[in-house]
């Protein structure tokens, strides 16, 4: 592996780890607040899948960095400006409809991204994708079912779900941006060229929203910045909570 490819792969693994840990943490905020027991457990399970995925990406990033850092340093010792996650993942959990719509957007995204990442020439990235593919099938079935049920439900649930779709839509464009780093890796057969997945994502999401009697928003506005470390104010608050124990007790083992 050339130094340039190695540095880019480290950056890429960190980005993917950041997406997973931030979304995993947001999902975990529902634990003990679910609408009923089974749903509460489902949230815990899905959160665990994402946090597990983050651990694998970070472990690989630490291996590439080879500077003594561990997966924990990546998760707990970086500030919001150093995080590279997509903004969609860091939005606060909102109400139940908001979280399920965000989950649908993410689940459809991973349904498209992971099979591509499986083809990566980088063996570790491919192996992490292989584990995520089956899990994502279950995630998508759940978020899809919920969006159908809420969209095509009562007047109140429909209203809230449409509001969530409209509020989150502008954060989805960033998911399909490529920058120099990812383009170089995509050309080398390592990273996924996400710009090519946009049409398929739009089609899958539109079909589900339409079936749920919801309106697919126009592409009127877009917020970007996650991949360059420019986040919404929400991430800082989230990381404060996520990192406080680790930072208060450096090196603690139990």
């Amino acid at each position, binding site marked *: 592996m050339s130094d340039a490819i190695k540095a880019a792969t480290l950056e890429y693994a960190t980005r993917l780890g950041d997406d997973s840990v931030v979304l995993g943490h947001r999902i975990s905020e529902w634990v003990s607040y679910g609408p009923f027991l089974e749903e509460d457990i489902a949230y815990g399970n899905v959160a*665990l899948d994402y946090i*597990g995925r983050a651990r694998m990406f970070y472990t690989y990033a630490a291996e590439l960095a080879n500077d003594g850092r561990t997966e924990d340093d990546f998760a707990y010792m970086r500030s919001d400006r150093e995080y590279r996650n997509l903004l969609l993942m860091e939005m606060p959990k909102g109400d139940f409809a908001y979280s399920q719509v965000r989950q649908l957007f993410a689940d459809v995204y991973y349904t498209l991204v992971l099979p591509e990442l499986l083809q990566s020439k980088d063996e570790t990235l491919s192996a992490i994708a292989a584990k995520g593919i089956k899990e994502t099938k279950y995630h998508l079935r*759940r978020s899809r079912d919920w969006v159908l049920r809420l969209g095509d439900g009562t007047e109140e649930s429909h209203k809230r779900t449409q509001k969530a779709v409209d509020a989150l839509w502008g954060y989805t464009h960033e998911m399909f941006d490529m920058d120099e780093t990812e383009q170089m890796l995509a050309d080398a057969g390592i990273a996924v060229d996400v710009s090519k997945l946009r049409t398929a994502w739009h089609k899958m999401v539109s079909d589900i929203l339409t079936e749920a009697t919801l309106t697919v928003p126009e592409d009127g506005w877009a917020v970007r910045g996650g991949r360059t470390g420019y986040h919404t104010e929400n991430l800082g608050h989230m990381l404060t909570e996520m990192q406080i124990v680790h930072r208060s007790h450096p090196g603690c083992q139990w």
Partner: protein
Amino acid sequence: MNEISLMPEEQYRRLQQRNAAEVKELWDLLDQVKDPEVPVLSIWDLGILRDVERDGDRILVTITPTYSGCPAMNTITDDVIAALKANGYDDVEVKTKLSPAWSSEWMSPEGRRKLRNYGIAPPEDAELDEDGLTPDAHAQCPHCGSRNTRRISEFGSTACKALFQCNDCNEPFDYFKKI
């Protein structure tokens, strides 16, 4: 010529690997290490134990996670080291290997039986739906054997299980998902 095997290919390969191993006694020893979440199954039964090698005094054990977020992996690593230490092997390294991804096909036949006796329906006790996912009904009840059952929750007490209830004996039960 088509051979009809009674055992899925993956299980057969694992068994061959164990039987052909130079350190067969270490495979037997590690077959005593239980999965902390399903304590009737050993890490061999579950297919988590992937390889055991000896290099001089050094023992290298390779394990694989069932699910990405399987929280049991750290405990399993500690238990493997403790089991080997208790038998005089002090120089042990446990490596986690992700590829190829774990499949419920790797579970041993004894593992499937043990699971059923423990009250958990093993993966093959349900016909998957057209998407290859857990169906919403008809997993076989491990208590009374009825197929008249329904899924209560896709996500059970751990990531690897879904929750069902039997319509005949009314007992709820876990189904070990096929992945």
